[in-house]
C-alpha cells in the first residue's frame, strides 16, 4: 500500500515508522497533539513508542479555542 490516511487525506508512508516522525513531518509539536490510530486513542505516554504502519488511519487533533 505504502500510504496512510491522516485527517481524511492520503499521505505517502512507505514502511512502518515511529509516530513522532509523522508529527515531525507535519511540523507539529508533540506537546499538545491528540492522536487516534485506527479508531483507538493513543495514550500520551505511548506516542513515542507507537509505530505507524502503511494502511493506518489517523486522526491528529489538538485543543483549540472554544466554548
Amino acid at each position, binding site marked *: 500500500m505504502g500510504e496512510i490516511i491522516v485527517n481524511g487525506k492520503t499521505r505517502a508512508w512507505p514502511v512502518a515508522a515511529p509516530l513522532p516522525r509523522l508529527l515531525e513531518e*507535519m511540523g507539529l509539536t508533540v506537546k499538545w497533539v*491528540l492522536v487516534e490510530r485506527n479508531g483507538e*486513542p493513543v495514550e*500520551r505516554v505511548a506516542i513515542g513508542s507507537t509505530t505507524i504502519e502503511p494502511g493506518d488511519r489517523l486522526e*491528529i487533533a*489538538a*485543543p*483549540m479555542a*472554544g*466554548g
Partner: protein
Amino acid sequence: MNEFSDPLIIAGRRFRSRLLVGTGKFPSPELMAKAAAASGTEIITVALRRVDAGAAQGNILDHLDPERYLILPNTSGARDAEEAVRLARLAKAGGISDWVKLEVTPHPAHLLPDTVETLKATEILVKEGFVVLPYMQPDPILARQLEEAGAATVMPLGSPIGTNRGIQTRDAILMIIAEASVPVVVDAGLGAPSHAADAMEFGAGAVLVNTAIATAEDPVAMARAFRLGTEAGRMAYLAGTAREKSNAEASSPLTGFLGGQ
C-alpha cells in the same frame, strides 16, 4: 460569608469561582488569557479539532496555567453520542482531562443539544470514569435522568449558544434547580453580567460564559464585570432575595408627614 466558605463542588472538587469561561472567539490568545484571569474563573473550556500539516505552532493551552485552571475539553462539533464519546476519549488519552463538557449539537443552525444522544453519551462516559458535565435542553425530566446516569452537573441553556439573549428558559431552569442534587450550571446565551446575576440569584450553582466576554469591546473589563455579576447574584441568593409583591409597600414611615393635623 466569604468565597472559601461557599465553594462550588463538582464531583468532589471545590471551586471558589462560580463562573466558568469559554475560550472561543477572543481577538487573541493573549487577550483570552487576560480575560480568564480577570474573570476569576477556575474552569476553562476548550474545543478539540483536527490539526493539519503546517498548522500554526503554539497552542491555546500554552496560555493557560494548569495549576490555576481546570481545563475542560468540550465535545463541540459532535453530532451524536458516538462522536462525543470519541472526542472525550481522545482528550483523556492525550492527558488533557477526564472531565468533559458534553455537547451533542447535530444542527448548526440552532446548536441545540440532542437529548437522546446526550443521555446516551453520558451513560457511556460515566461508566468509563469520566466526570461528565452535559449541555442540555432545559428539561427537568432530562435533568433527573442525566443525574441518575451519573452526570456531575447539569447545564441547561439560557438561550441558544452565542445569542446573548439571556435566560429565556427561566421557568424550566427553576424546576431543574428545585429538584437537582448536582450543581445546575446555566450555559449558553448569557449576554450581560445582569443575566449571570439573575441566574445566580434564582439559585443556579454556576454560569458558563464565552461569547459575551470574548466579543465585548473590552473583553478583560467584561470578564471582570461577569465576575462581579456572578458574585453579586450568588451573594443575593444566600442573603435571601426579597419577595415580589403586586402592590406597593412603603419603605418610609406612613406617619409624621409635614403639614398634618
